[in-house]
């Protein structure tokens, strides 16, 4: 089986983290975002993944080379030279996706994190016998998204309503598709939208079916949602494989700690914290609702909440980092500094407090 992951462009919404690496390589819960998807695909028997990418493909491929062997999966790139929307990349990757098997292939959006119930999706797809399956998820504020109107018992999609002003439904396109190869015949090689141009036609022919995604779903393309996404992800780990989560008197709620990270005495960690490889958390540190990426050092008595600490950064003694502070790679926050919502670009030293949310160039 094959799969296409829509990676897209610069990942500007996740800056300053994406100033250091392409968005799919930004760590989420201690591994690059795209690995969550590749591993889920591998687990249900996908053996070839195509990345639809238009920015820095060589960095991606270099990085993923190691995983090809480790996971036993073939990874290739399909590079857009111009933006092709959400459907165009499928046409571009047509030759890579088509083979003699006639099997359907997956299409995943790389910004989305969920429990990836791909096995269930295959069963659903086989059961309804239509041309295409999409996952939908319930959201609180459907007006921000494209709402999918479907027949509740069979899942047959009737139509799509883009950003509805009045309530028409609360299930939205979750960005996970399983498509028969014939769908590729419906897509031209030009900038085109799968939600607006391709799916409505399949729906009109009663060939499009939607499955409600069990478990959580989050578009983690921006920092606030990234932090929320981590909470949902760790909740799901707690239910499915709680042995992966840290335990002990200094742990509160769901906490993921890489085995190579060191944690000092008198700390209080959690809930909803991920501490990456090689991190050093000194004594008396408080961490909650935050991600601490690879190689970070948190010095004594510091307190971090609702923030992302980028790779190889340091947070000084008695520093306070909170309220959607995002530290890019190699940022150094001085002793006793307070950052309230500071968004700091890579390789900076913070010597005076940031009292109100601001961007530090």
């Amino acid at each position: 089986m094959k799969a296409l992951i829509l990676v897209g462009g610069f990942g500007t919404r996740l800056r300053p983290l994406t100033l250091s690496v392409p968005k799919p390589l930004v760590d989420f819960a201690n591994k690059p975002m795209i690995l969550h998807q590749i591993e889920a695909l591998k687990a249900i028997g996908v053996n070839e993944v195509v990345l639809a990418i238009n920015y820095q493909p060589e960095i991606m491929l270099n990085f993923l080379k190691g995983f090809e062997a480790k996971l036993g999966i073939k990874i290739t790139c399909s590079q857009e030279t111009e933006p092709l929307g959400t459907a165009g990349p499928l046409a571009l990757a047509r030759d890579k996706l088509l083979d003699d098997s006639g099997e359907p292939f997956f299409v995943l959006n790389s910004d989305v994190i969920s429990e990836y119930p791909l096995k269930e999706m295959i069963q659903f797809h086989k059961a309804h016998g239509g041309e295409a399956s999409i996952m939908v998820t319930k959201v609180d504020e459907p007006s921000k998204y494209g709402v999918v109107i479907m027949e509740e018992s069979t899942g047959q999609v009737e139509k799509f309503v883009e950003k509805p002003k009045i309530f028409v439904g609360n299930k939205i396109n979750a960005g996970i598709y399983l498509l028969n190869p014939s769908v590729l015949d419906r897509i031209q090689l030009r900038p085109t939208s799968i939600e607006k141009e391709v799916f409505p036609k399949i729906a009109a022919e009663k060939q499009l079916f939607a499955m409600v995604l069990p478990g959580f779903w989050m578009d983690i393309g921006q920092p606030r949602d990234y932090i929320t996404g981590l909470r949902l992800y760790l909740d799901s780990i707690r239910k499915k494989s709680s042995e992966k989560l840290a335990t002990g008197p200094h742990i509160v709620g769901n906490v993921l700690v890489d085995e190579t990270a060191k944690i000092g005495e008198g700390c209080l960690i959690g809930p909803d914290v991920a501490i990456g490889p090689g991190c050093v958390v000194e004594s008396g540190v408080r961490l909650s609702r935050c991600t601490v990426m690879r190689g970070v050092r948190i010095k004594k008595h510091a307190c971090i909440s609702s923030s992302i600490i980028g790779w190889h950064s340091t947070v000084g003694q008695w520093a306070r980092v909170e309220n959607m502070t995002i530290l890019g790679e190699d940022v150094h926050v001085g002793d006793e500094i307070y950052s309230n919502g500071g968004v700091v670009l890579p390789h900076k030293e913070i010597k005076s407090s940031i009292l109100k949310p601001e961007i530090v160039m």
Partner: protein
Amino acid sequence: MENSGEMEKVVAVIMVGGPTKGTRFRPLSFNTPKPLFPLAGQPMVHHPISACKRIPNLAQIFLIGFYDEKEFALYVSSISNELRVPVRYLKEDKPHGSAGGLYHFRNLIMEDGPSHIFLLNCDVCCNFPLPDMLEAHKRYGGMGTMLVVKVSAESANQFGTLVSDPVTNELLHYTEKPETFVSDLINCGVYIFTPDIFSAIEDVSNDREDRVTANLRRLSSIDISTSTRTNIPTDFVRLDQDILSPLSGKKQLYTYETMDYWEQIKTPGISLKCSGLYLAQFRLTSPHLLASGDGTRSATVVGDVFVHPSAKVHPTAKIGPNVSISANVRVGPGVRLISCIILDDVELEDNAIVINSIVGWKSSLGRWSRVQADGDYNSKLGITILGESVVVEQEVVVVNSIVLPNKILNVSVQDEIIL
């Protein structure tokens, strides 16, 4: 004649004001008289009092104010014992103005027959060079000598500004809080007088009484309250407007300029600055009062820090510079204190941080809580002030705020006054 210098006795009078004064010192003046608010671990009034101790032949120290006697009783008795000089609190039945208050108690002040009387305002912070002033005053040969200091031209109009003769140091001109720029020399609120000051005050008082009587005659058929003159009681005499201004340029008043620090302790914010100035002075005059430590057996201490002997500070804490910790405070593990005053009975739990703030009596700061400010002493919210018995819960951040007594903060606040 040679012995006369030794025989001459000196007394000191410190004006402490009363509860209706010092409203700018809220919320810290709600239940402690401002003169007893600790700076560098000692009550505000302690600093002028201990400066008086350096005056030769000091016979007595009087505190004059309109606070209740019992507010000062404990302090006055303990400081008398400590200094071995009688310190008495004299309560005015009502405010008389600083000159009027002095005059009101003239018999008590003069009972030892002093040759000189120091008059100090309690709410100024300086190094009180009293023996030097006494020497200068004797050289000038006038009735009074006042301590003066140069300040920036922009700030001079907030004070009593004056012009003095560059050669003789005579006070030539005095005006209180002028609208336009007069001079950058200002009155420090520290004076020395000969007993002739009492006749000068009496003259003002008599003059006023005459005018009141005259007015009453003239206004017999008109409502008296329409006359502003009659609103000032005859025994209310201000030192600045009623004595210094009229007597300037008459070879009776002289100035002594200090080149050292001087501040008026108007607000809680300024008091934090003054606490630091006094701590720095302790470094020179009484280093035994300052704490030290390197984090092995006792907490790490940076710069000038006062820790009351009854306070318990965990060895993993780091304190200073400019920190003053009062009685029965408990400083938990990993606490960080920078530029702050921690008042009696405060509890600071593990890893709490206080920067540029004053933490009121019996307050408590939860684990990883943070209380801080920009440290601009002159701006309204430049120093964070927690009133008495304020609770800052675990991990809560309080920035550039004033919190009135008995509040519980369970969410972070910034740039706010919490009633």
